């Protein structure tokens, strides 16, 4: 158990400290950083999904005035490490997916670079490709483990017997689509290479993780790589690991010493070069007794990976935590395809993995004749079902009850298709949310007293819109026992002490714990009246809490859905979520995070779908005109609330992480509401109108 910090600054709602810079547009994102006389890089990408490059003709490109160099697999320098195949830029003549970078043109202006890129002739001997994900492929395989280091398969009891005992069985297959993260800021890197030192202005969820990846790839010692990223225009996982453009920018910079090279991806390029969420196929089997208790629970999840690098989404993992059932199993299988490598997207595992099961829970509740809120309450486990560990705190039931109260659930007529208002069928639905409390190792924080009365807190953390600039300073203030305004926080630069990546909702747990430890060490060493220049640097303390406790945040989301009687158009006039996420550091900012996650969940439910052209192996709708994300008029009313939760086990702040849980369960709540409205059960996302026009 940790010593919980007494909240003074925490729990208050100061506005974002970097807010004035953001509303005026003066906060420098990666490509806004002023550099002297930069040159510009443009990529040439593969137009087939599989093959071998047989020749590259750069003659016409090089003949253009203003073109400085063209790097290709023929002339690119050898990298020190190609262990991460995604970063092995221009190291081989093999084409592994459509969109792979085959050349990079560097020129004095972006217009010239782009035009010259169109003049590079790459001849590729095409090979047959295979990009089709389906549940009946003979070559599906079990990865060694899935993302997050979880076991691939688990089983307990006798699933067949559990299903046989059941009074009601749901055995259905649910699918989620291919999603692209699409942070509003496209990935961008500006690289300057001078005297074997590399400076990168990058858009990243972790300056130190980017530094490590780049240093390793080029065989540099990490101190020679300096990464700066004070503001990030969203990431949602897509900037959580280094992608190939950072390597290409550095490579081009090495070819042109002392000259800043700017490389900004286009929106279209982001659909093949920066990761995405794999489509999933989830067979869910639930058995329920006559009185509505689960007798059996199974989730068999199938996803895709690229053939050249494996990523295994942990889709079935949340089912290991959610509900009690004596007989259970979860499995993960992968198809290795000639596609770009999938990666993290907001709540990998939980987001897709709470879709199938939470719709299935709705189906089984109806089969058992129970209210879906009640049905979930009835299946609350006493301990985490698969690990057997007690929960450090679990308030799913409180979220369901409080959500039902706020939403006005008790007046609901459960009959599907019972309500119609001026041409719209109206329904309501519910689903649960969950996200683990993650703690990433490897952070350090430095605290320095700078007269008069100011404390400089330094840690190479990130703010990707999450509010770190503000909330981490609030934590530091409480840890030091000073006012929020007396803390000067510095983040987003590898010159600052090491910090873990902003991913897995682990930022505040990891960096906050580190800052608290540093503050305590500082006070121990220097007392309450330090001298100017006193400073101390401390690493994140170990915690064994996860050995003893299952630590997760929970939530319940309620949706109202309207489906037009004639056109099948689907609208979501109302979304309401109640969450149990431990202590909330800054309510103003936390609400934005939760509402933002729910809004992205709504977007996933109604619109998002990367459409693969199997003939060519690319996402056809690769821009924001055709890959629809929710717009302002799609989102009339989204409310997020939380219950008071005191968890002494997670970390000294008592927080659980709030960046991802908001997107978990939203799509299921909306699908369940659409069923309530129409009686039509949709099991394949997105919820487009063709599902309802019969």
């Amino acid at each position, binding site marked *: 158990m940790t010593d919980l910090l007494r909240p003074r600054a925490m729990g208050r709602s100061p506005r974002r400290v970097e*807010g004035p810079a953001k*509303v*005026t*547009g*003066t906060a420098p994102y990666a490509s806004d950083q002023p550099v002297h006389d930069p040159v510009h890089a443009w990529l040439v990408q593969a137009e087939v999904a599989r093959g071998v490059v047989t020749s590259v003709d750069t003659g016409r490109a090089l003949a253009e005035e203003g073109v400085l160099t063209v790097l290709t697999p023929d002339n690119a320098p050898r990298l020190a490490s190609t262990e991460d195949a995604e970063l092995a830029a221009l190291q081989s003549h093999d084409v592994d997916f459509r969109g792979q970078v085959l050349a990079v043109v560097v020129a004095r202006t972006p*217009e010239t670079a782009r035009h010259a890129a169109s003049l590079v002739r790459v001849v590729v001997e095409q090979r047959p490709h295979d990009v089709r994900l389906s549940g009946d492929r003979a070559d599906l395989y079990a990865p060694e483990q899935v993302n997050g280091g979880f076991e691939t398969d688990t089983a307990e009891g006798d699933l067949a017997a559990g299903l046989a005992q059941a009074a009601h069985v749901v055995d259905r297959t649910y699918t989620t689509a291919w999603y692209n993260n699409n942070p509003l800021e496209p990935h961008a890197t500006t690289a300057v290479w001078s005297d074997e030192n590399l400076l990168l202005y990058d858009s990243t969820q972790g300056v130190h993780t980017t530094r490590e990846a780049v240093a390793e790839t080029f065989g540099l010692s990490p101190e020679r790589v300096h990464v700066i990223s004070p503001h990030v225009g969203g990431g949602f996982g897509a900037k959580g690991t280094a992608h190939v453009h950072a390597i290409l920018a550095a490579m081009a910079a090495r070819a042109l010493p002392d000259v800043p090279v700017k490389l900004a991806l286009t*929106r279209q390029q982001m659909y093949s070069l920066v990761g995405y969420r794999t489509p999933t196929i989830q067979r869910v089997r639930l058995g329920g007794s006559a009185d509505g208790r689960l007798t059996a629970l199974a989730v068999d999840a199938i996803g895709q990976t690229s053939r050249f690098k494996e990523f295994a989404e942990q889709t079935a993992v949340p089912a290991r935590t959610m509900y009690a059932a004596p007989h259970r199993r979860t499995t993960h299988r992968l198809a290795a395809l000639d596609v770009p490598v999938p990666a993290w997207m907001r709540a990998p595992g939980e987001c897709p993995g709470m879709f199938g099961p939470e719709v299935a829970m709705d189906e089984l509740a109806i089969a058992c004749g129970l209210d879906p809120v009640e049905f979930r309450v009835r299946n609350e486990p006493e301990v985490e079902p698969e690990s057997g560990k007690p929960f450090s705190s679990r308030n799913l039931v409180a979220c369901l009850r409080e959500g039902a109260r706020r939403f006005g659930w008790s007046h609901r007529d459960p009959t599907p298709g019972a309500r119609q208002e001026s041409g719209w069928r109206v329904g309501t639905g519910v689903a649960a949310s969950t996200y683990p409390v993650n703690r990433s190792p490897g952070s350090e924080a430095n605290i320095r007293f700078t007269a008069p009365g100011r404390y400089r807190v330094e840690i190479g953390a990130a703010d990707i819109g999450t509010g770190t600039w503000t909330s981490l300073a609030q934590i530091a203030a409480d840890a030091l026992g000073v006012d929020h305004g007396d803390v000067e926080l510095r983040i987003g630069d590898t010159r600052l002490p090491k910090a873990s990546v902003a991913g897995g909702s682990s930022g505040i747990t990891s960096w906050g714990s580190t800052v608290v430890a540093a503050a305590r060490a500082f006070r121990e060493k220097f007392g309450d009246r330090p001298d100017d220049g006193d400073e101390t640097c401390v690493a994140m303390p170990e915690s064994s809490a996860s050995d003893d406790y299952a630590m997760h945040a929970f939530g319940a989301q309620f949706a109202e859905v309207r489906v037009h009687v004639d056109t099948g158009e689907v609208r979501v006039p109302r979304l309401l979520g109640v969450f149990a996420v431990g202590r909330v550091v800054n309510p103003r900012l936390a609400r934005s995070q939760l509402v933002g996650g729910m809004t992205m969940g709504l977007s996933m439910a109604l619109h998002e779908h990367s459409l693969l052209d199997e003939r060519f192996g690319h996402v056809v709708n690769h821009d924001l005109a055709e890959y629809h994300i929710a717009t302002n008029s*799609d989102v009339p009313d989204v409310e997020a609330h939380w219950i008071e939760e005191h968890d002494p086990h997670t970390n000294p702040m008592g927080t659980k992480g709030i960046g991802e849980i908001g997107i978990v369960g939203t799509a299921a709540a909306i699908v369940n509401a659409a069923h309530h409205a129409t009686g039509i059960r949709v099991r394949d996302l997105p919820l487009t109108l063709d599902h309802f026009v019969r």
Partner: protein
Amino acid sequence: MDGEVELRVDGRTRRLRVDNRTTLLDALRDGLGVTSPKKGCDHGQCGACTVLLDGRRAVTCLSFAVVHDGAEVVTAAGLGDGERLHPVQEAFLDRDAFQCGFCTPGQVCSAVGVLDEVAAGHPSAVTADLTGPAELSPEEVRERMSGNLCRCGAYVRIVEAVRDGAR
């Protein structure tokens, strides 16, 4: 081929030579170092590059700089009055109508444009009465702000902020 243009940007007159292929957005950002408008798509699909162009909101990625000789450009950096932020910007801070902030300069310029349009009585696709004065209902704001995407999902707060900013 190059051309020369004169632009008035956030109150300052600037002359520059531009490639005829250079968009107004790139001219501002790369040519003049005015990085307040952002490039989210370069195709007129996201609104991040919105500025007030001769007093009306416009995306800057969809037209070439050479055609804007003599234009007046106001970016989010030039909306305020000296050190004082524009009321819409203050409202964005109060409502926390953003997270990553990348769409925000465009949202803010768009919002100021919307307020002017409503004040001038311009109807939108959801305006019921085309003859009466335009209103600033939440539905109207949502409709009028829908050309500005926000991947962080700050929409409900943006609507509140735009309406606050009108007061």
